[in-house]
């Protein structure tokens, strides 16, 4: 019985199947918001309101010819998409929405899981870098170096800003952090600055405008993904979608008091809060233009990092004031 439960947990809900459905829905939502902000319709034809369009795109890519360049490191080139998908899906398991007991830490919710989620969200960046590097084409190589260059910019502000609410809550466990803010909702307000910094950093991590530099099509064609096609590209796209869901879930858990209310209400909370964050990300995507990679790094260190440190300072002061 336990085996079947674990299997269901991993494969159906909240495992791969649910993640697939929800992340494609989030992609649809993102595309629709983005399109409406640009005075377009967005997806309309496949399914009701075009809801099935991301699924159709996925299926179409899966059926396309899969090409591996001769010069590429073939084993790495083939393994990376699956590896990346596995990592972000595993990170999704750790979100405090499904299976946790506040009193008893389990394998999906334990002290320090916030660090593990952050770590697992850093790995996709390295996977993008390796993917670009292993393809050995000019455009991929430039895309890969841009991925790493950007990483140096946004990673530190992201960590600082996500960890400061945890500091205030006095816990490294996502479920407990969320619980702390559910008890004291007013304390969400001092974290707003960190929330903004984290939103911008997540946008950079997801490589969306204004930070879509590694795969800026007008400059470096497909960038990191230039040589990828067919199933592997489909996996990478699904991976980016799931990464978006996980990042939105992480931000919601840390900054927006998590997902209270048990299985059903908690799930509704999860959907509403992640969609809200994805809406903000789409807004940012529609309203900005792409900046240069050197501008990303200088922006991150001139503005984001000091703001994140300021947030940390605020948290420390409040913590001293409260105790």
């Amino acid at each position, binding site marked *: 019985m336990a085996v079947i439960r674990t299997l269901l947990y991993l494969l159906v809900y909240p495992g791969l199947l649910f993640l697939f459905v929800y992340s494609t829905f989030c992609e649809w939502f993102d595309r629709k918001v983005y399109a409406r902000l640009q005075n377009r319709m967005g997806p309309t034809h496949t399914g009701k309101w075009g809801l099935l369009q991301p699924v159709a795109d996925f299926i179409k890519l899966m059926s396309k010819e899969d090409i591996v360049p001769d010069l590429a490191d073939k084993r790495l080139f083939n393994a990376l998409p699956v590896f990346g998908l596995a990592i972000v899906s595993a990170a999704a398991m750790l979100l405090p929405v499904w299976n946790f007991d506040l009193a008893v830490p389990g394998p999906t919710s334990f002290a320090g899981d916030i660090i593990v989620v952050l770590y697992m969200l850093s790995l996709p960046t390295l996977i993008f870098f390796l993917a670009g590097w292993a393809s050995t084409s000019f455009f991929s190589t430039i895309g890969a170096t841009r991925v790493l260059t950007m990483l140096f910019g946004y990673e530190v502000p992201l960590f600082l800003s996500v960890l400061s609410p945890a500091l205030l809550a006095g816990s490294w466990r996502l479920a407990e952090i969320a619980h702390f803010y559910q008890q004291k909702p007013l304390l969400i307000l001092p974290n707003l600055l960190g929330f903004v910094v984290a939103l911008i950093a997540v946008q950079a991590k997801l490589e969306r405008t204004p930070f879509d530099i590694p795969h800026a*099509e007008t*400059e470096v064609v497909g960038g990191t993904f230039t040589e990828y096609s067919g199933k592997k590209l489909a996996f990478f796209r699904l991976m980016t979608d799931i990464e978006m869901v996980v990042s939105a879930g992480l931000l919601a858990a840390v900054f927006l008091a998590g997902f209270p209310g048990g299985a059903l209400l908690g799930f509704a909370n999860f959907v509403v809060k992640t969609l809200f964050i994805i809406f903000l990300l789409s807004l940012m995507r529609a309203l900005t*233009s*792409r900046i240069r990679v050197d501008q990303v790094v200088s922006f991150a260190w001139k503005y984001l990092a000091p703001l994140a440190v300021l947030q940390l300072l605020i948290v420390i002061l409040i913590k001293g004031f409260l105790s």
Partner: protein
Amino acid sequence: MKVQIPIGPQHPALKEPISLRMTVDGEVITDADLRLGYNHRGVEKLAEEKTFIQNIYLTERICGICSHSHATTFVQGTERLMEIEAPKRGQYIRYLVSELERIHSHLLWLGVAGHEAGFDSFFMYTWRDREIVMDLLEMISGNRVHYAINTVGGVRRDLDDTQITKILEGMVTLRKRSEYYLMIGANEPTFTARLANVGYLSKEDAIALCAVGPTSRASDVTRDVRKDDPYGVYAEVPFEVCTSDLCDVLGRTVVRIKELLQSYNMIEFLLKNLPPGPVNVRAPRRAKPGEVVSLYEAPRGENIHYIKSNGTDKPERLKVRAPTLANYAATIKMLKKGFIADIPLIFAAIDPCICCAERTVELVDTRSGEERIVRFSDLRRAAEVRYKNVTRKGNAVWPL
């Protein structure tokens, strides 16, 4: 590490085939090389085989964006050769279409610039508004792209009152939106951060490298054929030459938006002062022997047609110098010391029209493995060297 990255002949940033070879050191461009010849269609040779009337429609097909520019340049020259002049009303309608075309071309460019800068919302908005002017052009001429309104001796269609009101209504909407774009173009922080100081071209360089059109005007060179050498109705129409002293892509954006606002004024002036009378005069089939150079300020800059006539109904020679060709030298200058991220922006900022510019043949020698552009004069010299010492076989006598 120095890497040579190819941009084109096939690349998402390019709408037409051209090849840019960039030598990059990290993200910085150290050298740039431009290769043409992927889009040569032999239009000039074809023009020698067709009559003047047929050539209007041929020259119109040189370009899909500035179709009216090429046709008008050709028609202006032909009318001078035939020593006829279009009636006032015909001229007003002809240059009204010119200005409408400038609007649609500049709106298109704004969208492309937004897309190249990764600002797709701007692209979607400007292209939505471009539909207004495209619909107006369709209403006037019956076509969205190749209007075919020109004929030798005037235009083919007249305007009626409902059309005039509709055009004026369209201009009101467009003016409001363009002012909004001017605000976005000058104020949206990520957009200006992306455009400012990109592709710097100093005033001296713009003059020395013979840049034309908005590219030169953005470097503070007051160069506009409509003002410098007024043709058609431009001596009567009040307008300003828009310049900017920013010398970069942001300046080119600002100049183009300002020109949009000027064009709206000019269209309103043309429509309100539209003289009565016929729209065309009957033109002879043959042109008198002679040669003529016709100048025209296309949306992209100065367009030159050289037409030589030998007294028949066909031109003996037609030479087209499109504005894009004049701006290539300046582009290479702008690209050097830039970033990879700036390539599409800088290149798009001259509003390149490859199919306009590809009028000459250049050969690329790939035999030795090292590609090399061979000039026609070099080819001839090589042939002379090679055949100088070859003994002549037979005694071919050329009858004179």
